[in-house]
């Protein structure tokens, strides 16, 4: 047999986005130890998210929420064969490097943890490991995709067991996409300029705080080594792809507030590719049953008779919180 020269490539965009495609139609569950990870795997989770505390407890505990302890993440990686994801603080490049060195399968640059960088997110193109990021609207989604995010999720309002904010985010993204589809390419370019503004605004803020002139020069970088124009061009390309596809070019999951099988079905019916569940499972009265029920609900989202059957005898869902009464709004972190 003639020998074919074997050239390997790692960390390509195709591999990163491809990994996210393999979890479609699945449920990704937050876990804080090996035992919870095994419950999640047994229930049919496609992946687990390793973190220090589930969002409801992060909310209660207050203080700075950071990347989970390394030994806990390792314990979870050793306990299951499904992929393991873990969260880092927004902009915390060093935490992300450590998780990449640990060979975590995906990194969630998450607003649920206390942000590390008050201005910018991580330039995810500089990593081989794929990232997922939260977004409340199309602008946030497009910015994260341009920065290299291989997957997008709604932010929702984590730790509340209240689906209202996730619904809001899905609606905003979907409506914005429909709007983009009706626009001319010139109008889409103007949207790209609008969506690039936060980078410019944050760069100006830095200058202002430092007592420098606010004016950003044409050839001056505003994010990493990218100038404002380069960012606009990058966002424009992504928007044109969205216009053509009628959806985000990466996998899009629901997160933040999913607490019942019907919550999961609602999200799938609104066009989500899958669901993240955090406190919803381990704050319910019977985590095993709730986990299994949510997995099946994602699979059968368009069969109400099946969902009815699934929803029987699953115990009490988590109590849940009213959004207006919250002291801390996690979704507002990171634009």
């Amino acid at each position, binding site marked *: 047999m003639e020998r074919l020269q074997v050239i390997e490539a790692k960390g390509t965009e195709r591999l990163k986005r491809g*990994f996210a495609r393999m979890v479609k139609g699945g449920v990704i569950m937050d876990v804080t130890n090996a035992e919870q990870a095994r419950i999640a795997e047994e229930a049919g989770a496609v992946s687990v998210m390793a973190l220090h505390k589930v969002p409801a407890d992060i909310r209660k505990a207050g203080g700075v929420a950071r990347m989970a302890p390394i030994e806990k993440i390792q314990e979870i990686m050793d306990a299951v064969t499904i992929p393991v994801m873990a969260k880092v603080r927004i902009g915390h490049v060093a935490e992300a490097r450590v998780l990449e060195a640990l060979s975590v399968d995906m990194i969630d640059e998450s607003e649920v943890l206390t942000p590390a960088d008050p201005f910018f997110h991580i330039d995810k193109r500089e990593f081989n490991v794929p990232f997922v990021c939260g977004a409340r609207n199309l602008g946030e989604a497009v910015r994260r995709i341009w920065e290299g995010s291989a997957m997008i999720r709604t932010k929702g309002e984590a730790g509340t067991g209240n689906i209202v904010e996730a619904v809001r985010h899905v609606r905003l993204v979907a409506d914005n996409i429909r709007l983009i589809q009706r626009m001319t390419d010139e109008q889409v370019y103007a949207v790209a300029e609008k969506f690039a503004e936060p980078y410019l605004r944050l760069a100006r803020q830095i200058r202002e705080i430092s007592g420098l002139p606010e004016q950003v020069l044409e050839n001056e970088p505003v994010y990493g080594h990218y100038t404002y124009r380069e960012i606009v061009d990058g966002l424009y390309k992504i928007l044109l792809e969205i216009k053509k596809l009628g959806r985000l070019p990466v996998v899009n999951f629901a997160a933040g507030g999913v607490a019942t099988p019907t919550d999961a079905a609602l999200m799938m019916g609104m066009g989500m590719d899958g669901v993240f569940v955090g406190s919803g499972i381990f704050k319910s009265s019977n985590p095993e049953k709730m986990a299994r029920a949510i997995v099946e609900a994602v699979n059968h989202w368009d069969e109400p008779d099946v969902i009815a059957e699934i929803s029987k005898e699953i115990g009490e869902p988590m109590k849940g919180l009213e959004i207006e009464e919250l002291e801390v709004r996690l979704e507002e972190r990171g634009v």
Partner: protein
Amino acid sequence: MLKVGVIGVQGAVSEHIEAVKRAFERLGVEGQAFWLRRPEQLNAIDAIILPGGESTTISRLMQRNGLFEPVRKLGGEGLPIMGTCAGLILLAKEVEGAVEGQRFLGLLDVRVNRNAYGRQVDSFEAPLKLSFSDEPFPGVFIRAPKIVELLGDKVKPIAWHGDEVVGVEQGNIMGLAFHPELTEDVRLHEHFLRKAL
């Protein structure tokens, strides 16, 4: 009219449907590709694809929604079935690194090792050699399984990464460790669909 169902419980389902549609065009055949989620959809079907995803999840959900046994029976009776990545694991007779209690269809005489290449950071792209074409094929390996042994001589290699076998066929059954559905190249989908023509 060729009817191809992609097992649609979890994973890269729409990607396979798109690839099958492109393959239909290139072969010049009338065909239909659809999400296969319920046992009653197995009536009058010409071929089945088991997509990539999480083999543990797909296996569990197929058992719960009643697809597992009928698909195994149809495969045994000669219906063309192709599995990619997780799908290859589901088709294999022997699986190393399986989760306790995980069930497999056992239609392909191979032993595979789940996640043998390592974790996502070890995922890679590499050109492959095919048995039926001179042009290299773009191989996309994502947390891929390894074919560690061919069990008997009924099973034939059809794709190599260097000296390693990464794709096999055994009559009506085809198993690939990689993801042709993530590329524009549909030669492997065409090769599979010819089994159903």
